[in-house]
Structures are given as structure tokens and as C-alpha cells.
């Protein structure tokens, strides 16, 4: 599926701020399942961008703006062709819980079994995870059950949590948005030894009535590790195994490692953030007959989401 994404984040500050230093994780990687046609990240006020690959191999751009400014606009545009990783008529069953200890100390799994900034390991979470697992001996089946449990038992509601809410609180309240659902699922999985990581990205809502949740902004879901298959994506917000409508931007232990925009500035708090994401589907291959216009396929999703809580940590001005 050929997807074109435009992600725009705008911050407005009530008073001029200065010395803004930011890191951006907005650049979709090139993998076997998604081929980047192009991707551009840009910043206003115009400033020099540089990049490095972080520990999770996410391309991370960074920039500094020393001069006072009252507005910061960060845009990324990308066109990516995605392929389905999972065969939907043969799910990757066959990896057993008994085999999990084998993976524990592998480099690609170890970090994703530990506690992290948003994900605690508590006896309560462990107990709940065991209950959800029930008698399952298969890792994929258990993971699927956890996803389904969150989808059915948790209430999707924006405003009930903030960007700082940790998994434990989400599990207790059973309420949140995609970020919280993903954290909860990561916590459950890790509690019973399934390596799980947090994924940020976009997805294209191909349903006729756009009933799926999370397509209005950047989305978050989870990947769990299956020995013979690799990482498999599960979306607890929509109870879906990740297919070609999903586009990965960054992966990490939790939100902290993949936040699309993170940084600091000097100045008063109380900034206003406005995010808009549009994911458009483009015609993928040859289309016969020149007259038919396929520019606008049905199902373009454009929306603006307002969040009160910016992910930029502000440092109160020193008088």
C-alpha cells in the first residue's frame, strides 16, 4: 500500500522562549516491509538539522534554536510503500512459553524484558497478566489474548491520562488512549517474559466509516518477539494484527524512546501544541485507462488533534 503522510506539529508560546534543543523521531525506516520513497523533516524557524541513529536504530534528527521565538513548527512528509509482514491465513503459532527463557539474554530481546521509564514490573501487573494468559502455552496466542483483553476491558478516552501516565496507572484505571494501551500491553507481556516493544507510527483507516481509533494523530502499538518469526505488531487500540495499513516510524522500550518531538527550552511554560496528521493512500501500481482519475481515493483521513500537554519539557525561566 502506498501511503503519503504529512505530520505537522506546531508549538505556540505565550512569551518568547529561547535555547530550544529538540530531538525528532519522525523519519520512517527502510525495512523489508516498508520501502521509503522519500521522507523530509523540516523545522521553522529555519534551522540546521542533523541526524544520528539512536540505540534502537531510529533515525533521530536534532536541532537548536538559540534566538527567542514564539512559534515552532516541525513538519515531516513521507511517502512509503508498505507490505504485509503477517500471513493472515496462517498466524505464527508454535513458539511456546517454555522456550522463552532461551531468548532472555539475547541482545535484541533483553532490553525489552526490563522495566523502563513508563513500564513498571509489579506483582499486580504480573498477576493480571497470568490471569489473561490462562492456560495458553503459545506465545502468539497469549499476546493476542492480552491485546484483546485491553481492547475489550479498557475504555478509550482522551483527556483521562497525560503523556506522562505510566503503565501501572493505566492498568489500574483501565482508561486511556493508544499510547496508554500500548504501554499497558508492553507491561503485561514483559511481566510474563514476552519481549515487547513500543512502536510509534501511523496507520491508514481503510474502513468505510473510519471507525478505527488513533488515525487522527500519530499512532502507537506494540511488537512482541516470536523466535521463528521475529517482531510481530499488535494494536491493542483496534484489536488488530498489524497489516499493510500500518507504517512504522520508530521503535523503543516505551514512549520516552520514540517520542516524535522531545526537547527543552528556556522560557515560561503553558505552551500550546497543535498536531495534525494526514495519511493518504496513493494508487500503488499500474492503473489502466488514462481517463479515470485516481488522485483521490476514498478514505483520506485528515484531522487536527489538540493536546494540552506538550511533550517538550519546559524549564521555568530564571529571573
Amino acid at each position, binding site marked *: 500500500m502506498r501511503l503519503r503522510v504529512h505530520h505537522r506539529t506546531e508549538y505556540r508560546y505565550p512569551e518568547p522562549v529561547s535555547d530550544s534543543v529538540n530531538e525528532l523521531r519522525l523519519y520512517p525506516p527502510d525495512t523489508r516491509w516498508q520501502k521509503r520513497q*522519500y521522507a523530509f523533516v523540516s523545522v521553522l524557524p*529555519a534551522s540546521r*538539522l542533523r541526524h544520528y541513529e539512536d540505540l534502537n536504530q531510529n533515525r533521530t534528527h536534532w536541532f537548536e534554536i538559540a534566538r527567542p521565538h514564539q512559534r515552532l*513548527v516541525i513538519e515531516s*512528509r513521507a511517502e512509503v510503500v508498505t507490505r504485509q509482514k503477517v500471513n493472515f491465513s496462517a498466524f505464527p503459532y508454535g513458539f511456546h512459553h517454555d522456550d522463552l527463557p532461551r531468548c532472555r539474554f539475547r541482545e535484541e530481546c533483553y532490553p525489552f524484558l526490563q522495566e523502563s521509564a513508563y513500564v513498571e514490573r509489579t506483582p499486580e501487573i504480573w498477576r493480571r497478566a497470568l490471569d489473561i494468559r490462562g492456560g495458553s502455552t503459545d506465545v502468539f496466542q497469549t499476546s493476542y489474548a492480552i491485546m484483546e483483553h485491553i481492547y475489550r476491558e479498557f475504555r478509550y478516552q482522551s483527556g483521562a491520562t497525560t503523556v506522562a501516565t505510566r503503565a501501572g496507572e493505566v492498568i489500574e484505571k483501565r482508561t486511556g488512549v493508544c499510547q496508554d494501551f500500548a504501554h499497558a500491553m508492553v507491561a503485561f507481556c514483559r511481566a510474563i517474559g514476552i519481549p515487547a516493544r513500543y512502536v510509534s507510527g501511523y496507520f491508514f483507516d481503510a474502513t468505510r466509516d473510519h471507525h478505527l481509533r488513533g488515525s487522527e494523530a500519530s499512532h502507537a502499538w506494540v511488537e512482541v518477539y516470536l523466535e521463528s518469526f521475529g517482531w510481530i505488531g499488535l494494536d491493542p487500540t483496534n484489536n488488530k494484527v498489524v497489516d499493510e495499513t500500518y507504517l512504522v516510524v520508530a521503535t523503543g522500550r516505551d514512549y520516552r524512546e520514540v517520542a516524535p518531538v522531545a526537547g527543552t527550552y528556556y522560557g515560561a511554560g503553558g505552551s500550546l501544541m497543535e498536531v495534525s496528521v494526514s495519511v493518504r493512500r496513493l494508487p500503488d501500481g499500474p492503473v489502466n485507462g488514462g*481517463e479515470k482519475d485516481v*488522485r483521490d481515493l476514498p478514505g483520506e483521513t485528515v484531522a487536527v488533534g489538540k493536546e494540552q500537554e506538550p511533550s517538550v519539557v519546559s524549564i521555568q525561566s530564571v529571573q
Partner: protein
Amino acid sequence: MFQFYQKESFFDEMFVGEDESVFPHYQGLRERLGRLDDAEISEKQRRVDTSFLEQGVTFTVYGDDRGTERIFPFDLIPRIIPDTEWRTIEQGLTQRIIALNLFLHDIYHDERIIKEGIVPEEVVKSAAHYRPEMRGVDVPKDIYIHICGTDLIRDAEGRYLVLEDNGRCPSGVSYLLENREAMKRAFPRLYRDYGVRPVDHYPELLLKTLRHLSPRPGQAPVCVLLTPGVYNSAYFEHTFLARKMGIEIVEGRDLIVLDGFVYMRTTRGLVQVDVIYRRLDDDFLDPVVFRDDSMLGVPGIMDAYLKGNVALANAVGTGVADDKVTYAYVPEMIRFYLDQDPILENVPTYLAWRDEDRQYMLENFPKLVVKAANESGGYGMLMGPTSTAAEREDFAAKIRQTPRNFIAQPVVSLSRHPTICGDNRIEGRHVDLRPFILYGEDIEIIPGGLTRVALRKGSLVVNSSQGGGSKDTWVLYH
């Protein structure tokens, strides 16, 4: 038909090798043309020409006494671009227009690119179209170049290179749209079966781009097209676009500024204007701020613009990005602002402004094309290989006098495309390509662009004012 075709040493858009084999995307066209005889070609050409003339698809040549209205010569053989090739062009142009807009924002605000030593301050500040009035001004939606026409050429290896960016008032899009209509009539079945991506939504996209800028969100924006008037060479295009978009076409005298707002005089009183698609250079826009002898502009319009009460497309001050010296720095801008390598490369450029480059220019005239930095439309140019000694003397003197105003590029052997010439013989003629980029809420590039062809044998100058013609450009779905 192609029996006398001479490919010579140039890159040919249609023919692959020395024999008569063509690129796969030209196969169908070749077969169709092969079934035509001379009489049929003449008949098709005559019909197309007549329809252009009757519809008034014409342009004006300055400084020519033989009747100023002419039709833009149209060639029946379309230029065809396969999907994969087009995607690369599209990406390269998207990258470029983002970088140019960041550059314009930067030089009118923080000047990071100057302070970090990437682009010399003199280059920016001495550009004829640098507008100090725009310093510190936030333009609507932070977009400077909303409509850009970037000229691409192909070199001897067939690589696409950027020749120049037209970020002020690029023209030619109406010919592109009319050429398509003509082709549909001339070859209805061939067109239908070829899988050509449509272009006729351009006016719709342009209007969307303009409406995006409206300073009064929530209300239906009033957009107008501001033309210099009937004597402008592109007047046909102005009326064409206004009609297609369904907006008013106005001259300076139709607009009035009251209390910082722009109004249009209508038979039912004054109507507030939100967005002006101006086809008028900065210089003539406002006699109060710029040239005081301008009879074409609107006094006080800059005041309304700076107050944010009206949007202009393109923004004021974009001419810096048009400047041919700035052009040489675009690859550096892309690296600076976007942290990437350019997808489309520039033609190598010598700047008379740099001592060593100037020396090289003065010594190597016959190998170079010398261009004035701030001219467009093929005026103020020296074609080294065909120049006379007197012309070279003249240019050398000018370059020494004002080095900032001149650049030089090696003569790129532009790609050639089969073109119908006198007596229905098909010969290779040099072509370029001007795609049109729209930067509004999204960046949109209509598939293809205007392919211009130098009709004079051996000529490398494709400008309509210098004896160029045009072709329809087909971007395929596959």
C-alpha cells in the same frame, strides 16, 4: 517515418541505441505514428494550429515589430515519462521546494544559513530581488513560494538536472493544459489507451492552494488574480487561469486599499479581498514601497500585506531564490535544512563573483553559457559556442564591471526528442521540462509539466520568446 532520423551524440528521449529501437514506453507511440502518412500529419497539425489561434492561445514577443500576438508552436509528438522516472522527479522537486521555502524564511528572519557560513551574506543581500521590507515578517502559513516552475533538463547520460527555479511568477501552465486538450483531439484513441495521468485538475489545486492562505478562516475566501494587463506576454494565461478557477481577474486600478484592507471595486460596491494571486513582479506591486513609477500596482497594498490582512501568492521577496547565484547554493541548502543529499542535481555553475570562477569564465567563453543572474525568459544570455567575438567582448566587459550579476554553466547537451520539422520530416530537437509545483496545505506537482522544444535546428534555447515551441508531456501510470 523515422527513416531519416539522426540521433547523433545526444541523449534521445525516444530512441535507445544506434538502431531504430525505442524505449518501451515509446513503443505504442511509434507504432501509431508509423501508420500516419504525410497528408494526415499535415492535417492534424493544421487543425491544432487553427484551434490554438481561434481560442487565442497566444503570447506576445517584446521588441518585435511583426505583430506581437503569436501562437506558441505546438509539436504533435508527445514526450512520454514513465512512472518510475516521474516519481524521482517528484521527490526531488518536493525536496527542493521545501528547502527553498526554509531558505527564504531563514534569510528574512534568523539568517542561520548566513551565520553558519553556508551562503555568503553578500550573495543574499546583493540579490536584485532581496526585499529588506520583508525582514522579520511572518508570511501567511510560512509559505513563500506557493507556485514554482522549476526547469529541468537531461544531460548526455539522460540524468535529470535542475537548470533554474522560477519562484516569482512562473508562467506556461496554460499551454500545458491547452496542449493536453489539443492532443486529446488529435489522437483520441492513442491517448485513451496509453494510461496517461491527467493534468486538468491543476486550476482546482491552484485554487485550493490560494484558499489555504486566507487570513479570514471560516469564511469563504475571496481570491483574485492580479494581472499587469493586456500587454503582458502571459495575459492569455492570466485570463485562462482566472476563468478556470472561477475567480475575478483584476488590474491594479481595480483594487483599493482602505484602512489596511484590500478591496475590489465591483458594480455592487467594494468587496474585501483575502488572497491575491499576483502575476506582477514585486517591483510593480506597490508604488509607495517599490517603484514609484509603477502604474500597474496598488498603492498601500504592502501595508495591508504586512499587517496580515491580505495574502499574496507568491510572497514578496521570493526573487532571491530565483537569482541564478543563489541557485548555485541550493544543494547546500538542502544539506543544511533537511540534512539530506539532493535528489536532483544542479548543472555545474561558475559564479563570476568568485575570483577563480570569473577567471575561468573569461578564458573559456566558447565552452560556456553565460547568464545574467536576475534575468529570465532567455534574455541577457550569451551562448558561448555560437557567439561572435564582439558579443564576447561585450559580455567580458559587463562581467568585469558587475561580477555579481553573471554566472556561467558548461554547455549541457540537452536531450533531444523527435519533432516534426519542415516537410513533415522528423528530426531531433532539444527539449527541457518545466514542472509546476504547488505548495499549499500539501505539496502537489501535476504529472509532467511543460515540455519546451527548441525548434531551430541545433538551438539549445527553448524559451518561447526565443523561437521555442512546446509538446504535450505524458506521465504514465506505469
